[in-house]
């Protein structure tokens, strides 16, 4: 058995789980580090919108967004418990080992958006991938113009990254608007779908020179796209990140291939213009 010269793209590196924070029911944030410090340094050069493959020994591997911004110190994933791998991750405790490889995918071209207004529209856990871009944009605040964040959830208890949302609400030069489908007694904010915020008094979304980031469940996505197009947004100025079943993350296993694109290498970030041409359900 000889060690080949070619790098093994499928080989994950062990990571240690440092702490777990509950976000909303069934969704937790896992703070972790690579055991190897050099690995950690290399990994940290990811771009907002990229993803990683997480290995749970004996269970399997799954792709997940990178919610931190490369400008932050900590590395973490926010994961909903939905299948066998994510359930196995949810059962881990601080100090447990798992493995990670990546970062993969194209990511959002944040440099191309310099000098533009940014509108973030996130439904539910759609805020996970967008969190990275928002934090990145705020740490490079002088590079961007107007920044607006719209986040909707089913109930107030299901709003994501609440401490961060409060921070954004307090940040000068940033608009952060929240809404819920069903209010509870203590909820004083807007009630309705995310799109209902767009028409609210006092909210003005600039269409010229603006990039709209949209992430959320399929129904929300369709309606928000409709609203944005009606406002006059060009399809190429609406960006999102696609989710697909993936095994390799490096363009070989074929599972995520739609139309002419391998979501893992050609995406996961696509403009709405590209998504429409790919011709498959979101």
């Amino acid at each position, binding site marked *: 058995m000889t060690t*080949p010269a070619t790098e093994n793209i499928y080989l994950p590196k062990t990571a240690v789980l440092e702490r777990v924070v509950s976000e909303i029911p069934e969704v937790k944030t896992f703070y972790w580090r690579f055991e190897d410090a050099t690995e950690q340094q290399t990994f940290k050069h990811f771009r907002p919108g990229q993803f990683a493959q997480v290995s749970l020994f004996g269970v*399997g591997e799954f792709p997940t967004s990178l919610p931190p911004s490369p400008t932050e110190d900590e590395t973490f994933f926010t994961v909903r418990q939905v299948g066998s791998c994510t359930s196995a991750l949810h059962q881990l405790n601080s100090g447990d080992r798992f*493995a990670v490889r990546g970062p993969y995918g194209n990511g959002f071209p944040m440099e191309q958006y310099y000098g533009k207004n940014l509108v973030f529209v996130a439904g539910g856990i759609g805020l996970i991938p967008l969190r990275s871009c928002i934090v990145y944009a705020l740490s490079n605040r002088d590079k961007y113009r107007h920044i607006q964040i719209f986040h909707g959830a089913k109930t107030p208890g299901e709003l994501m990254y609440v401490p961060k949302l409060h921070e954004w609400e307090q940040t000068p030069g940033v608009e952060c608007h929240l809404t819920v489908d069903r209010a509870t007694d203590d909820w004083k904010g807007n009630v309705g779908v995310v799109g209902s915020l767009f028409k609210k008094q006092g909210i003005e979304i600039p269409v010229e020179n603006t990039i709209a980031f949209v992430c959320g469940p399929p129904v929300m996505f369709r309606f928000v796209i409709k609203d944005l197009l009606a406002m006059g947004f060009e399809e190429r100025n609406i960006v999102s990140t696609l*989710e697909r079943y993936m095994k390799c993350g*490096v363009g070989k*296993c*074929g599972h995520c291939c*739609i139309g002419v694109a391998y979501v893992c290498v050609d995406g996961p970030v696509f403009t709405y213009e590209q998504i429409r041409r790919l011709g498959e359900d979101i």
Partner: protein
Amino acid sequence: MKARILQRSDVLKVVDLLRQRGYEVIAPFRGRGRDTYFDTVSEHNRDQIQLHLPNPYYPPKRFVFPHIERMMKFQRANGEIHIEPTYEQPKRAIFGIRSCDLAGICHLDRFYLGREFCDVYYENHRRNLFLVNVVCSDPDQDIGEECFCVCTDTGPAARDYFDLQLMDLGGDEVMAVAGTPAGEDLFSDPIFRKAAAEHVDKRHALLDRLRKSFKKDTTSWFSATVRYISQSEILEKTWEEIGNRCLECGGCTYVCPACTCFTVSDRQVGPNEFERVRTWDACALSGFTRMAGGFNPRRSVHDRRNRRFFRKLAHYFIQRELSMACVGCGRCAAVCHGDIGMPRVVEMIRAATNEARTT
């Protein structure tokens, strides 16, 4: 490329030469009836190797891309995890690989070794692989009902990509062509003698005859179908018609020399030991795109059929890999119970789209 002549009775000595050089040699054998298969050559079966036979349904692709392959081992001890990749780097030769299957390997090379990332497992299988292509020169035995390499431009005689090519010229003569220095190296053995101009003429004449002995003739339809697929001109109802005939068995993928998809799974092999394996996967199967939580962007069968043929025939991918992901071997046509192998689908698409355009 250099050509030599050897005696028909000396042809299996090529196998011996390779074995002497330390290669594990894989060659085609006959089972019962139509059954033919590739197997490792030993002293016991060496004389049963076949030069002419129907191409085995189970393609030699598995020697570069095994249908089950271990990728790594995980060992857990005292809370620590040890990950060890597992590599196999055989020194192997395939004797008697047909031109279509050779084109398949050429396609896999571009797919796995090229692009953004290189697949180390594939590379390991490929690195020391010696390919002895045998030209399908016996129309009765070599060329089957479903063969259509003349349409995909991959046969009956491969133009390159082999280390050595053998072509039975009839009588007692076999022509050997070296495609690489490794192939040429074999020519130092006295079984090879110089070829003359008459042998080259014989080869051309024989190939001309062979090209006319194919039963399928979808040559001109391929280009039309590639164009229709690339321009999304195919009606939904044509895909539905194709989808309705698909039994979702995945057989077409299993026998395809150019299919590349795989799935990865972990399994426990000891109390604190796991291994990660990859296995062939098929886009015909409904679980292929189903995500955790149950959402499946490609629910209907016809969407999945659309996927297979789009991936194989769209101009974008042909340009990317410099070849169609179809090599004209005809296996999918032979194994498909719904009769929607590649040649039939090409024909269905061409006919339906053409009709829709003219009415």
